[in-house]
């Protein structure tokens, strides 16, 4: 991946105005990042790019390597190998320019317990080298944006966790950096605060490039334009939330509950056009059963037209009772659970379709079941 150099940042005049970059310019670039601690490989060969204005969600279980990746991208610690580029500046070799373009919220919200909110933010504005004439305005704007107006004069040590987290967010956005790296911005907040922070982050996207990490799935689905799932230090899936869901959706089973003798019903369903395999999920009494119906993919690998109308017709015509016929939507949860359950890494982080067809986005086990037969199909 080649880096397009942006207009270089002049240290003297901050806040920095960078010429509007073309849409495709990557603002965050991770190239084959690997970090080794002793004999533990925290992350391995992690590569991705985040374009200008994008909001990338970094999803993974605890200990997957999210924070390590973010620490590398923020320049806090170097990668054992690979390269991290922020706004066109290498975070190690051109560290100052990169750090100027960056707002970083670490995993543990930075708290300067002995300062008031305003004083803390003024200090951060100073060390971010904002021009002294603009500091007060920048601090006010950050306070307003993060909803800290009512507590601005209070000691941070006396604030609730939610407010402290917002103070952390305020210091990250202070000076309007182009790139924001937020490590679990909603951790430890109550549901109302989570909603507020999410809205805040979402409002920022477009103007700023945001990379946020989380292990809360709806968060990504609600806020992000792009998702990367990481597990055991490797990227296991990537794409837009919708594309990840739809890839898995193609082969997601239809749930059919039929009032009939199960064996007969199964036989009938298997004969419907477009239906591949039918599995008995569970019997509900003697004459009622739930099936999982899998569609036959056509030559291109895509599923054919929805077979549900044909199934309904067949069931009714055979004189059986149709109780339920549905295809539950796949959630990111399914993608996530599936991706992290798979020991062999699939996606290469480029998010293209070929990678997506690999093991990482094959049929997911839906919430309530897991079938050994299905697993064997994956391999």
């Amino acid at each position: 991946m080649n880096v397009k150099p942006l207009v270089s940042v002049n240290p003297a005049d901050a806040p920095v105005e960078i010429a509007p970059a073309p849409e495709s310019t990557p603002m965050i670039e991770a190239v084959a990042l690997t970090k080794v601690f002793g004999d533990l490989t925290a992350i391995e060969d992690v590569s991705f790019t985040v374009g200008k204005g994008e909001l990338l969600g970094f999803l993974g279980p605890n200990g997957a390597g999210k924070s390590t990746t973010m620490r590398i991208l923020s320049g806090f610690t170097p990668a054992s190998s690979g390269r991290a580029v922020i706004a066109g500046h290498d975070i190690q070799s051109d560290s100052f320019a990169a750090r100027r373009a960056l707002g970083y919220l670490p995993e543990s919200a930075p708290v300067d317990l002995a300062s008031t909110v305003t004083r803390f933010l003024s200090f951060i504005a100073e060390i971010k080298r904002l021009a002294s004439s603009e500091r007060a305005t920048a601090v006010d704007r950050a306070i307003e944006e993060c909803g800290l107006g009512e507590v601005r004069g209070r000691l941070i040590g006396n604030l609730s966790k939610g407010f402290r987290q917002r103070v952390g967010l305020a210091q990250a956005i202070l000076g309007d950096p182009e790139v924001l790296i937020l490590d679990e911005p909603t951790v430890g907040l109550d549901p109302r605060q989570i909603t507020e922070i999410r809205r805040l982050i979402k409002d920022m996207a477009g103007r700023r490039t945001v990379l946020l990490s989380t292990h809360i799935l709806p968060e990504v689905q609600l806020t992000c334009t792009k998702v990367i799932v990481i597990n055991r230090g490797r990227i296991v899936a990537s794409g837009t939330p919708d594309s990840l869901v739809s890839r898995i959706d193609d082969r997601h089973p239809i749930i059919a509950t039929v009032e009939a003798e199960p064996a007969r019903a199964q036989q009938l369903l298997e004969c419907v056009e477009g239906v591949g395999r039918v599995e008995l999920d569970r019997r509900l009494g003697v004459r009622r059963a739930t099936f999982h119906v899998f569609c036959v993919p056509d030559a291109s690998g895509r599923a054919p037209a929805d077979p549900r109308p044909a199934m309904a017709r067949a069931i009714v015509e055979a004189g059986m009772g149709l109780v339920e016929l549905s295809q539950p939507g796949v959630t990111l949860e399914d993608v996530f659970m599936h991706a992290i359950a798979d020991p062999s890494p699939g996606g290469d982080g480029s998010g293209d379709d070929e990678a997506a067809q690999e093991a990482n986005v094959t049929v997911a086990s839906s919430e309530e079941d897991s079938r050994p037969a299905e697993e064997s199909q994956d391999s």
Partner: protein
Amino acid sequence: MIQGVWSIYKRELRFFFQSASTYVVLGLLFLICGTIFHQVTFEFVNDSAMAQAGGPFGTADKAPNINVAVIEQIFRLISAMILFIVPILTMRLIASERSGGMFEVLVTCPIDDWSIILGKYLALVTVGCVIVALCSIYPIGLWVVGRDQGAVPDLGIVLSACAGLLLIFAAYGAFGLMASAATQSQVTAAIVTLVGLMMWAAISEFHMPNAAIQRVTDELSAAHHTENFITGFVSLRDLSFYFIASFACLFVSARVLEARRWKV
């Protein structure tokens, strides 16, 4: 660079003067020093009176010198007390940033490690200046009271002793900063500093098998070099000892901050 140092310096100085521990430490220091000062001054007055009276217990040529009997005593005491004050003042400096998560924010802001170290160190030295300035109350008191009796402390000795106090504070402080940079916990930082400083100060007290080694340990000892300043003897050797020691500790501190960037 300068702006970064200045920002860190202001913030750190504010922390010093809004923290209760600073005042507790200063209060204890002057409580102890005041008591001892009273004691030595009282003895001095007694001895002077006896010397003037003559008789079997004292003669005029045995009259005590105010510089030796009071000034040296009190400054020697303060220099020893500094050893116990410094760990309390320095333990917070960097360890608290690390444990509070501020460290990551600081070092991902466009500010270099040396600015952080220097800003914090200069704030600490400023506190040292305040302490030394407050200590000058003792020689000033002697001067005010003793002016009429012709028993005033020598200005040169007082100034040299003050400089000595400030230098040893600065050297001990740099050591404390180094310990604070190397640890996450403030308690560990304080203990490491205290033990380290005790060894550094007392290394000349151990009896060495031969004179050459004894000479080396004397020169390495921090307390040994203060002795000259307190007795009014300023030498380039003692000055450079403190400067080199302080700089070495600051240098190591900056390296410690930088260590997270090393590829391992």
